[in-house]
């Protein structure tokens, strides 16, 4: 197996294992840390596919900002493993079976898709480079880009208004 294949399998196993640990951990802080490992594994996949800009943005935005926000909220609410509410055992089994059934349906639907022999180009291709992405973003997609800035403004205003203490 070439280096690319070994890297792919290693990153996939790390991502899947960490995702399962996110769901299974009792302590919410452990869940956040496992989710950060998932984000690192997915950024590794992006680098393997030569999507360099998305790999770095994924790390900075998701692992660097969003997860830190989660950690702050968890620590401010002082949640730990013993304040975790316990779910009914049958509901947990039903949830796992529902997730497994969805997995089964999607895999069965997609395993004979006609594009199964197409390859995703790894280790090459220049559409992931920031120069080409930037040109496409600011030429063809400049209107969604500006609208997303208004979205951020409204999210900021909304978060501040929701979080205000009643006077």
């Amino acid at each position, binding site marked *: 197996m070439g280096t*690319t*294949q070994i890297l*792919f399998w290693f990153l996939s196993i790390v991502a*899947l294992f960490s*995702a399962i640990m*996110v*769901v299974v951990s009792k302590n*919410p802080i452990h*869940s956040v840390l496992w989710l950060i490992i*998932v984000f690192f594994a*997915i950024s590794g996949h*992006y680098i393997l*596919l030569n*999507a360099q*800009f*998305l790999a770095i*943005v*994924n790390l900075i*935005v*998701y692992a660097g900002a*969003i997860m830190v*926000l*989660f950690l702050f*909220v968890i620590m401010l*609410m002082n*949640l730990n493993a013993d304040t*975790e*509410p316990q*779910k009914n055992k049958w*509901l947990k089994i039903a949830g*796992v079976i529902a*997730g497994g059934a*969805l997995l089964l349906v*999607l*895999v069965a639907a*997609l395993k004979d898709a006609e*594009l*199964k*022999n*197409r*390859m*995703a*180009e*790894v280790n090459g*291709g220049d*559409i*992931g480079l920031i120069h*080409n*992405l930037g040109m496409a*973003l600011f030429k063809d*997609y400049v209107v969604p880009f500006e609208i*997303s800035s208004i*979205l*951020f403004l*409204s*999210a*900021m205003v*909304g*978060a501040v208004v*929701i979080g205000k203490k009643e006077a």
Partner: protein
Amino acid sequence: MPINYYIFLSVALFCVGVAGVLTRRNAIIIFMCIELMLNAVNLLLVAFSKMHHQTLQIVNPHAGIDGQLFVFFIMVVAAAEVSVGLAIIAMMYRNTHSVDVNFLNRLKH
């Protein structure tokens, strides 16, 4: 890498996220599983963009760049959604001192 591998990896991550949303009672963990689902979809979009780039790059050297731009916008929306969602969760905790979704379910009483 065959595109099948990326499809199955992304589907598996998505289903782990779905099982997490259905199984957990802590509102913050549910939120984190939603982020996991979004990331699974992002990975699949990037893989498909590379697949289209490989087959179409003779015709159009920037074929498939739309997939990666869409991932960029998904990350934008996810960041905004996380900030508003955590503000809501923090406010509910301030009112009820619990992040248990079964308890928050009884808001109407």
